[in-house]
């Protein structure tokens, strides 16, 4: 298993904004559905960390805590 975000056929373009975003959303959906220790979730975690700027991540984390994150993460 690759530890970082490799090539993803959904995001073949120069613009990787959605690649970062999708992995962030997928991680939190994943851990809500399967729990924090479910190993396949780790890949999403590494991918969004390696792609998203840290200030994006902290902004979205704050939004999740305040309950105004624009995507429903519940399974």
């Amino acid at each position, binding site marked *: 298993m*690759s*530890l*970082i*975000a*490799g*090539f993803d056929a959904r995001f073949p*373009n*120069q*613009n*990787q*904004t959605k*690649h*970062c975003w999708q992995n962030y959303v997928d991680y939190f959906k994943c851990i809500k559905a399967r729990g924090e220790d479910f190993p396949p979730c780790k890949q999403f975690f*590494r991918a969004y*960390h*390696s*792609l*998203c*700027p*840290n*200030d994006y991540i902290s902004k979205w984390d704050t939004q999740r805590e305040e309950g105004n994150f624009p995507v429903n993460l519940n399974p």
Partner: protein
Amino acid sequence: MCFLSNLIWLSSNLCSNDAAQPWQFGFQDGGSPSYEGIVELHDDIMFYLILILVGVAWMLMSTIRKFNWNHNQIVHKYLNHGTVLELIWTISPALVLIAIAFPSFKLLYLLDEVIDPVMTVKAIGNQWYWSYEYSDYLDQEGQSIEFDSYLVPESDLEIGDLRLLEVDNRVVVPVDTHIRFIVTARDVIHSFAVPSLGVKLDCIPGRLNQFSLVINREGVFYGQCSELCGVLHGFMPVVIEAVSLEQYLAWLSDQIPPYLTKEGYTPCIYLCITHLPSVC
């Protein structure tokens, strides 16, 4: 090449030409396959350019010579149509355009390809400095390596440093490694550019752009912000330092804040596991 340019320009660069020189007309020395591709395309196009230049100059000169005021031979006075001639001057430029377009598109799409990167570096443009994040290496709390890179002011330069190009924190990356760069900006549009690596990509707030980079020799590569971004636009250089994998790993472990080196922390390290198990 680099010795010659040093002789001519009396520069302080004793190695490859990886930074802009005063009055430089030619290219810098290439440090990556993308750069070599770009130079090759330039040379290909230059061939057609010379062909066209010679052809057009010859026609122009012979017209001036043959039809000047002194011997005004009005040949083909009543000619207003020439199918063969028109076919030639329509089809031959079309063929030249096709011959230029094919290698150009090939290069364009090759440069766009980020196939299988081993690591990711994020470069973020700010007014007026760059900040970099290496987030492949995370500790348990999700902390990653990040630092800002500012221009070294003229008063702090040391002998051999390049004025307006030196920064306090360089981007250190390993050679011969597929690296994905993610570039973006926090305030206005900047552009991440390093000529000798064949890299120039706009950094747009709210958008993440990627390019791939393989550096094929060790060295220090200089570039500058290439999108007008405000008063200090000319004072936010990019410096990429390509080192061997061992040196890179040593640099990485220096970046780890001391409070994180407690037990439980592994500087991750896909690179380490795959390339250098003995070092880990």
